[in-house]
């Protein structure tokens, strides 16, 4: 993108003679990939580690109240004397579970619905598309709040609620991409040669829509993580001692001046995860589709 308005010099001409897209842009993308990998990898490792080992018991209140960072408590303690680093570690696990779970629910509902709409032409397709548009008009957060309001707050409810409200976006995209695939002549050829619709979906549609749909699903992960944090901040997320980063920030808000680390560390972890995933997607997209970039 950056090199687009510069005249191409001979050194920049690629092997196949295409107009170069600019080496700087490509370098920036591979840098994005590396930074994304490091951020996401580090958080995933911490989350994994938190299953087997934690520096302190999450409900251990033997530490002093609002202690600063030190050798024993790396990030200090909260106002109940609990170790902050331990809680941030658990938060990493919850964020990943909520994010992956919500995207999974969104895909499990959205993709079949989108595929059915793509196959069903006429008024069925119209009605389904209209319903998707209405659902999409509702931000993830409000729908999730509604469901949590009815079902009560828990990690599972929040995850399913976010995934459910995401499924409309997934369904709409799946429908559009699948429709494009279904219009191809190889589909007609497959039908003529007697292939069943189910096999067509498996052999032609899914492999062709997956690159586009998977990128979208991955970018929904960041949205899901942020939504879970917001719901937890509002007190509608996983109940304690499963401290989500959102809940940690809510608890630390009142002591932000005396113990700023408690109101900063979970936020940085949250932003690092979302940015990491977004960078990872950018970098991977470049590898998956070198022509477009």
């Amino acid at each position, binding site marked *: *993108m*950056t090199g*687009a*308005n510069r005249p191409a010099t001979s050194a920049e001409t690629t092997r196949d003679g295409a107009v170069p897209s600019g080496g700087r842009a490509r370098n920036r993308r591979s840098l994005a990939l590396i930074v994304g990998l490091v951020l996401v990898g580090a958080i995933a490792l911490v989350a994994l580690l938190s299953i087997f080992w934690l520096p302190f018991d999450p409900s251990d209140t033997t530490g002093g109240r609002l202690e600063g960072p030190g050798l024993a408590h790396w990030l200090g303690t909260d106002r109940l004397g609990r170790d902050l680093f331990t809680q941030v570690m658990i938060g990493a696990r919850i964020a990943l579970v909520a994010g992956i779970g919500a995207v999974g629910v969104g895909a499990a509902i959205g993709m079949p619905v989108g595929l059915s709409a793509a196959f069903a032409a006429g008024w069925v397709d119209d009605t389904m598309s*209209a*319903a998707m*548009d*209405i659902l999409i*008009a*509702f*931000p993830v*957060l*409000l729908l999730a*709040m*509604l*469901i*949590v*309001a*009815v*079902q009560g707050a828990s990690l599972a409810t929040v995850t399913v609620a976010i995934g459910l409200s995401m499924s409309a976006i997934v369904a709409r995209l799946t429908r559009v991409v699948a429709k494009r695939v279904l219009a191809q002549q190889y589909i007609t050829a497959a039908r003529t040669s007697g292939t069943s619709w189910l096999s067509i979906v498996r052999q032609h549609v899914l492999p062709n829509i997956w690159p586009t749909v998977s990128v979208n699903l991955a970018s929904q992960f*960041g949205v899901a993580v*942020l939504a879970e*944090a*917001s719901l937890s*901040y*509002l*007190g*509608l997320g996983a109940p304690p001692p499963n401290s989500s980063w*959102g809940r940690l*920030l809510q608890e630390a*808000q009142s002591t*932000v*001046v005396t113990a*700023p680390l408690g*109101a*900063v560390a979970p*936020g940085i972890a*949250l*932003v690092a995860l*979302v*940015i990491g995933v*977004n960078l990872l997607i950018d970098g991977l997209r470049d590898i998956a589709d070198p022509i477009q970039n």
Partner: protein
Amino acid sequence: MTRYLLRRMAILVLSLLLAMLAIFVLLRALPGDPANALLSVQATPEQIAAARSQVGADLPLFEQFVNWFRGMVSLDFGNSFISTLPVAPEIVSRLAVTIPLTLLAFGLAFALSLAVGFIAAHKSDRWYGVALSAFSQLAIAVPAFWVGILLIATFSLKFRIFPAGGFPREGWADPGAALAHLALPVLTVALVMTGSLSRYVRSATLDVLGSDYLRNARAMGSTMGTAMIRHGLRNGAIPVISILGIELATAFLGAVVIEAVFALPGLGSMLLKAIAQHDYPNIQGILFVSTLAVLVIGFVADIAQRLVDPRLRHSAGAA
């Protein structure tokens, strides 16, 4: 255009009906009878039956829906289970906080993202252009409530420039005080919104800058400024307008979280309280008003897009 307008209005009404049906089903047919909210756990069966008839939960579902529908359409949302006050006036008084918050934040974000997006695209080879692109990337990854917490810590607890939260009891009687209390919430919403909005402005600007019509206009002797205003603005505005609608709706509903951060007595904090207390009349009243707002915003955005883009205006049949 008239045909499109009629068609689009039909969709608006239909969407509202569907959304109302969804609210009704979600709040009634799912576990958690609204009558339960009126009673303690040890209520006798007679008390439960009385509560159910008070709420109308003993009628057949269809009849319940018709009654409820009639109430909603005439903006009679019933009385709160908890305070027993009518819901509608409460919503109106809460909107006096939420609507200014939404509109001010939206206006600020719009102005900011035009500047940020344009510079990020036009000066992508300068350090500040790159820095602005990076800001957009960062802003979409930051939760709004955390920005709010950090702004409170900096601008009200450390430097004591703005109040940390709350809203004057007498509301807008003293506009200065009211605005001071809205300053940080508005800034919070606007900063986060600028992140996503400026990315659309940036890509729209890139499209315009790389377009044939702009190059032709420049070749015909038009200055960059004139060419951008006469050709670029209108073309670039088309994709941005449809996003504006979504952003405005998101800001209105995102107010729920921001009002919690700043302890503002708006629609969002009313909804949170209603959810905590299982106050169904309040919940459904708020949901109805929010739904209506979201749908009307989408409607207006679609019409605006047609007005700007003559290609869409003349293809009335295709929606």
